[in-house]
């Protein structure tokens, strides 16, 4: 079994010149590495790169929205035929929107987020030497990189990248003649996504089996940090949902290339009657959103886990309602499979079905609300340390509230009639998913940077980064609610064709400048990130005084994570500021026998022997005190 193999050679390590069965070369340490810590860094850096690309694309189309009538010769120089006369062409605008959405949702917030932190944290926080299958784990990264390269290569084909929106609804995406992006660009999109899904499945299966099988001694499920819970449930969600998208994508490939009509029927394109018969475009939407809705939770759940962990550590307080936090994650995982129809209220779906999806959708808001309240309760009477990670976690909660509340409007089928596909939806998901998940990810980067790169990031640059981004994101997305309430549709190249929309033009200019400002703030992050990797202050063993296992592993990365035996876990990860204990944290590796003065009866709920000991100690202690 691979598990055993990893355990065995993990005991040896490269650094100290021991004999070893394979040599550490540049290629197998930095490139084709099978070490989960290195793979995590590969995912992170690729994810950040993709994020910067997608952000640049968004700035480009924001410029078009702000200045629809102006010409920027520079754009023509840079983009050539995509921006004739210095103005983006409508088709290229669509491509930008599409690729921006695809990269952000899948490549940054799915692979970049889950890939990085599942790889880094699962083995380190549950006390494993590596993933269940390091080889498959490595493949997962390489498929992801391949998918990224294919996705970006679409910018170099003649007619440009896919342009039917990140949801690629057929028939628009199915017929190359329907729009330029539906030609070669769409083919590349589909191939890229198939690679991506393969990557995500390989990763997901690995994460699930690692969590289930490779926890160290004492680490039962209820002692896992919430990060691991969140990443674990996310992986389950991905493993169950992504194959459905593959099915949808493969059928679309058939329709495009092999003349089938799964999604096509009764079509007259440019006056030409098409031969397709009997398919249904709505079928694709069902398949897409069956993945698509779980996907949005795939994006947010790791961010929730990270924020929970970061907020607990930096409030120096146990996460409030650990069990409720886990059960709400489980609830979200289950419910997210039965709400997809809320994206389809106005497709002509049977109104009764719409009603059912409305009910399930609003039910899912309950676990979300519970999580929010528990975060607030975690801050209450804490001793809050504002590291950049903590600020980002707080920002994440703020965005999650603001964006989640608008979900209650959209989940209401009656209200969605007028809100569907307007800027209101754009505002909703950019706050609740886009901003919240990115903030969760950044919180994770700031928090675990010392673990990954053995150095600290600069705090003050982190503060600058946080405040500009946080304020910028609100300035960008808050006004969009009102555009949506005025009926401004999303995915419009320009609002100039409608006199009624003219009043939003100035707002658009404002939003664009807010976006540019937030874009520049990311440069502060990039500088900080790169600089700190090489020249940052060296970290200490446990820079945040945290309880979880990863801070027990040596600073220097060793293959197999721990030199010698893997530590045993005795307690849950949230014993912060426990009364009776001198320090304000007790790592999971500290046995109760060493913390007699702070133990509580509650600690021995399913440990009768421990409880007996505890009671004995209490009696003895009382007696002692009386003697004094």
């Amino acid at each position: 079994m691979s598990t055993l193999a990893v355990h065995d050679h993990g005991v040896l390590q490269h650094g100290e010149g021991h004999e070893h069965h394979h040599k550490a070369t540049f290629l197998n340490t930095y490139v084709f590495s099978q070490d989960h810590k290195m793979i995590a860094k590969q995912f992170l850096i690729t994810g950040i790169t993709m994020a910067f690309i997608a952000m640049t694309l968004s700035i480009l189309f924001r410029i078009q929205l702000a200045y629809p009538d102006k010409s920027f010769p520079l754009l023509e120089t840079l983009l050539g035929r995509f921006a004739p006369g210095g103005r983006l062409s409508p088709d290229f605008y669509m491509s930008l929107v599409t690729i921006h959405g695809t990269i952000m949702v899948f490549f940054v917030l799915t692979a970049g987020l889950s890939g990085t932190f599942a790889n880094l944290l699962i083995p380190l926080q549950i006390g494993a030497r590596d993933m269940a299958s390091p080889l498959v784990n490595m493949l997962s990264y390489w498929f992801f990189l391949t998918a990224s390269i294919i996705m970006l290569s679409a910018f170099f084909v003649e007619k440009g990248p896919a342009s039917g929106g990140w949801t690629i609804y057929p028939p628009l995406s199915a017929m190359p003649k329907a729009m330029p992006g539906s030609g070669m660009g769409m083919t590349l999109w589909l191939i890229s996504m198939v690679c991506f899904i393969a990557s995500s499945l390989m990763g997901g299966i690995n994460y699930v089996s690692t969590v289930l099988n490779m926890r160290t001694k004492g680490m039962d499920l209820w002692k896992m940090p919430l990060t691991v819970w969140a990443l674990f449930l996310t992986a389950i969600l991905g493993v169950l949902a992504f194959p459905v998208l593959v099915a949808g994508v493969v059928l679309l490939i058939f329709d495009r290339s092999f003349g089938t009509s799964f999604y096509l029927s009764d079509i007259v394109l440019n006056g030409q009657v098409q031969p397709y018969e009997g398919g249904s475009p709505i079928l694709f939407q069902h398949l897409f959103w069956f993945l698509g809705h779980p996907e949005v939770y795939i994006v947010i759940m790791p961010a929730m886990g990270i924020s929970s962990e970061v907020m607990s550590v930096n409030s120096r307080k146990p996460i409030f309602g650990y069990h409720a936090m886990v059960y709400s994650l489980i609830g979200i995982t289950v419910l997210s499979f039965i709400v997809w129809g809320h994206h389809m209220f106005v497709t002509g779906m049977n109104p009764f079905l719409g009603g059912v999806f409305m009910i399930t959708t609003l039910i899912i808001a309950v676990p979300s609300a519970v999580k929010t309240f528990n975060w607030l309760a975690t801050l209450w009477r804490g001793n809050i340390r504002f590291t950049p990670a903590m600020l980002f976690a707080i920002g994440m909660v703020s965005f999650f509230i603001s964006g989640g509340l608008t979900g209650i409007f959209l989940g209401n089928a009656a209200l969605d009639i007028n809100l569907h596909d307007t800027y209101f939806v754009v505002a909703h998901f950019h706050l609740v998913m886009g901003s919240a998940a990115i903030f969760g990810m950044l919180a994770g980067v700031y928090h675990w940077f010392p673990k990954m790169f053995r150095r600290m990031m600069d705090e003050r640059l982190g503060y600058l980064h946080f405040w500009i981004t946080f304020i910028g994101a609100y300035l960008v997305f808050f006004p969009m609610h009102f555009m949506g309430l005025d009926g401004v549709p999303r995915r419009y190249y320009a609002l100039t064709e409608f006199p009624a929309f003219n009043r939003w033009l100035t707002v658009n200019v404002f939003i664009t400048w807010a976006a540019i400002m937030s874009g520049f703030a990311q440069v502060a992050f990039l500088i900080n990130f790169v600089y700190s990797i090489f020249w940052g202050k060296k970290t200490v063993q446990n820079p945040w005084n945290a309880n979880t296992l990863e801070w027990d592993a040596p600073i220097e990365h060793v293959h197999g994570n721990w030199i010698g035996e893997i530590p045993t876990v005795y307690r849950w990860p949230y014993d912060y500021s426990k009364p009776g204990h001198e320090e304000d944290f007790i790592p999971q590796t500290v046995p109760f026998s060493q913390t007699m003065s702070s133990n509580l009866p509650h600690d021995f709920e399913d440990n009768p022997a421990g409880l007996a000991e505890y009671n004995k100690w209490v009696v003895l202690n009382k007696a002692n005190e009386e003697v004094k």
Partner: protein
Amino acid sequence: MAFKKLINSKKILSLFAVFLLSGTNLLMAQSTDVAASGNSKAGHSSDWFSVGYYLLLFFFAILCVATLGKILKVYDLSVKMQGKKGINWNNIMALLCAVFLVVGLYGAYWSLTVQGSMTLPVSASEHGVAIDNMFTVTSILTLIVFVLTQILLFGFAFIYRASDKRKAYFLPHNNTIEKVWTVIPAVVLTILVVFGFFTWQKVMDISSKKGDINIDVTGHQFAWELRYPGTDGKLGKVDYKLVTGLNKLGVDYSDRNSFDDLQADTLVLPVNKTIRLNIHAQDVIHSVYLPQFRVQMNAVPGLPTFFKFVPTITTADMRIKTDNPKFEYTLYCNKICGGSHYNMQKVVRVVSEEEYQEWIAKQKPYLSDQLKADLKIAEIKPSVSGQISSNKLALNN
């Protein structure tokens, strides 16, 4: 201090100002006709000049931030050397949270009132009123939650900022309060769901709205086609296989109801009558979106859909209500459908019954003379409804 000198140096400041001024309008905001000649060599070299300029500006900004950081660091160190505590970043961040809370809430209030007043006017349809009520109730509830939770979030962040004198309060859970805040959202959401469900059922209920005027709306890249029934009040069948250059909608003329069907450029609707829009798409998915009427339904190829509603406010009345003499109801396409998705519109006009009759009498039949010739049904006079039954024979011959 040397840094202070640097910052205060008037020379540098004025240099910077000159730099800024000379640079604006290089990259930004060239009018379109200038750009038309932008292909010339001169145009391009000036591009690069402006790029260089902005890059310089950017580096300058980075330099400023870096200098500021250094100054702060030096200040911090010098204070510490005097034996005092340095800058307490933790308190500064906590304070910023509090400031953000206040300014942010004001900003949200401003946005709600100023931008909130730029949103759609009152619903111009019967069912829309129910939707708007639902919206108001939801808004009030969510806004309360929004304000409270944000206050708690940033308030706690500010109040419970770290202090060496204090330890956090060890509170792992409290089952009572957790139950309370599971049940309360559940109850509130149940109320919203129940009301939403009934509103939705009412809006979508087709049987309660009687006496329809059927109008066909067909979307294709990139326009909407309208088809009104003629004097018989019925629309003829369509079949996409019959589409030709002349018969754009593929109207089936073996169905005699088709003969008097009318085409129109504007979606004119009589006020207070039940309208049934039959929605079709020919090529890709479009979406009929009439925001002022709270109407939206996708147009899906191969899957005809419909939306029934009752317009209640005429265009003329709405012009008075909105105080905008140019106000028009508009039909947008609201499902991405290609490059010109952003400009697929139709004017919608709600008029009185008399005006409607007057207008519809002027509309031309779909069965144009050319189309007649094409289909070899020249002898038909579709405008005379009495003749239709006999004409059927002619067609069959």
